[in-house]
């Protein structure tokens, strides 16, 4: 091997190594650290009587929104409010008695099943209990 070829190779290698030494910490810096959060199991989503029949509200469930619906027969249903298509927050439509995502017209029934539009999976269903004056939502134990 010629001395020039060898030196060219050495310079290229050193340059690459230097680039990697600079880029690696930059890339690591750009990706935020994962901060462990206590998984939310249970929240008070509403006060008893706060929701009229056929009404709904969204509420914080950990870092994500949940949705609480009071059906026409007065029963409470709760789900994750994160649309399984592209993550928008869903809402309840009393006229069609369905959970609807405004972003891409995804539709779920009151069991959380994806029944129309692009959502690929059902919404995660939560358990609902009325405890005293509180409507408590918790992660489904059977899930």
């Amino acid at each position, binding site marked *: 091997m010629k001395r020039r070829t060898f030196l060219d190779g050495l310079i290229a290698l050193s340059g690459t190594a230097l680039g990697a030494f600079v880029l690696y910490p930059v890339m690591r810096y*750009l*990706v*935020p650290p994962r901060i462990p959060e206590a998984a939310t199991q249970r929240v008070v989503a509403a006060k008893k009587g706060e929701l009229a029949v056929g009404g709904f509200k*969204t*509420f*914080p469930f950990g*870092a*994500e*929104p949940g*949705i609480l619906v009071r059906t026409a027969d007065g029963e409470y249903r709760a789900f994750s*409010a994160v649309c399984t*298509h*592209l*993550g*928008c*927050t*869903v*809402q309840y439509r009393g006229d*069609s008695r369905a959970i*609807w*995502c*405004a*972003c*891409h*017209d995804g*539709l779920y029934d009151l069991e959380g099943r*994806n029944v129309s*539009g*692009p*959502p*690929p999976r059902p919404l995660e269903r939560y358990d609902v209990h009325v405890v005293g004056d509180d409507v408590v939502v918790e992660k489904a134990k059977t899930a």
Partner: protein
Amino acid sequence: MSAREWLRTRLGLDALQHVVEEKRVPVHRHSLWYYWGGMTLFLFGVQVATGILLVLYYRPSAGEAYESVRFLMTQVSFGWLVRSIHSWSANLMVAAAMVHMFSAFMLKAYRQPREVTWLTGMALFALCLAFGFSGYLLPWNQLAFFATKVGTDIMADVPLVGGFLARLLRGGDQITGGTLTRFFGFHVAVLPALMTAVLGTHLFLVQWHGMSVPPGVEQEGRPAKTMKFVPNFLLRDIVGWLAALAALALLAALFPWELGLKADPYAPAPAGIKPEWYFAWMFQTLRILPSRVLGLEGEMLGIVGFGLAAVVWAAVPFLDAPDGRGTRARLWSLVGMLAIAYVILFTVLVYVGGRA
């Protein structure tokens, strides 16, 4: 020694003057399309100027962003005007860039030796869209919040690197104040730095190779008529820029850009939500794709499809016939026409189509 003479010897103005005097633009029946690059550049200049003004009042945090924009629009003299011009100019710039890109495609301006000019143009268009996407979140309103949620979720669906990309963009797993600060950084530092480098290369290449003459005009073999860039072409450019400035003033005054409601991460997406018009055709595609196609998730199929289409579009200089003639060239013209028709049709469908 006069000041002009002093500068002339120190800045090499003679060489610059020579280049300016020598630069000529071909004149033919398609010359109208030559003005759209300059128009895009002018509107980018408006963005830089108004962006600098906005940054003097804007506060990039979830607690203050919305309030700072509201203060700017309601209390600061002409704040509403500066923000409206920035928003309208962004839209017109993307529109001008689209006209420039599609006309360059249809006139086959990407043929050798202008392949790199085309590739840098593609990069500039991607940067324009990135500017639009990152800037849209900055007022921290409801529409912006969900547009960013959907946009970054789309990134998350990119095979292999999607999760990494989405976290990199969001600065975490959710859209938070951290995302806003990060998008601000992209919008005012990262993207302008990239834009300067790529735009500089693009403009240099345009000067280096001169304007492309379409194959149809070349084929006719007539002696190409030209006009001087300075002053003839530049004066015509300026007429267009003044018209654009007038249009911007009119749009900003008659249709000031709304601020909407402050983002609430736990509120439902508002009915009638849709992205900016330049993302509308993709939005419509994702909306009509069923949840599953051939065993794959519809959204994944759409997103991979967009990616592949972008790669093919960027690679067209290497796929089309080098002389721009024959069956292969006609096929790529047809591809261009179909792409334009698809984008227009799917964009129109968003605005005239019924919603659930």
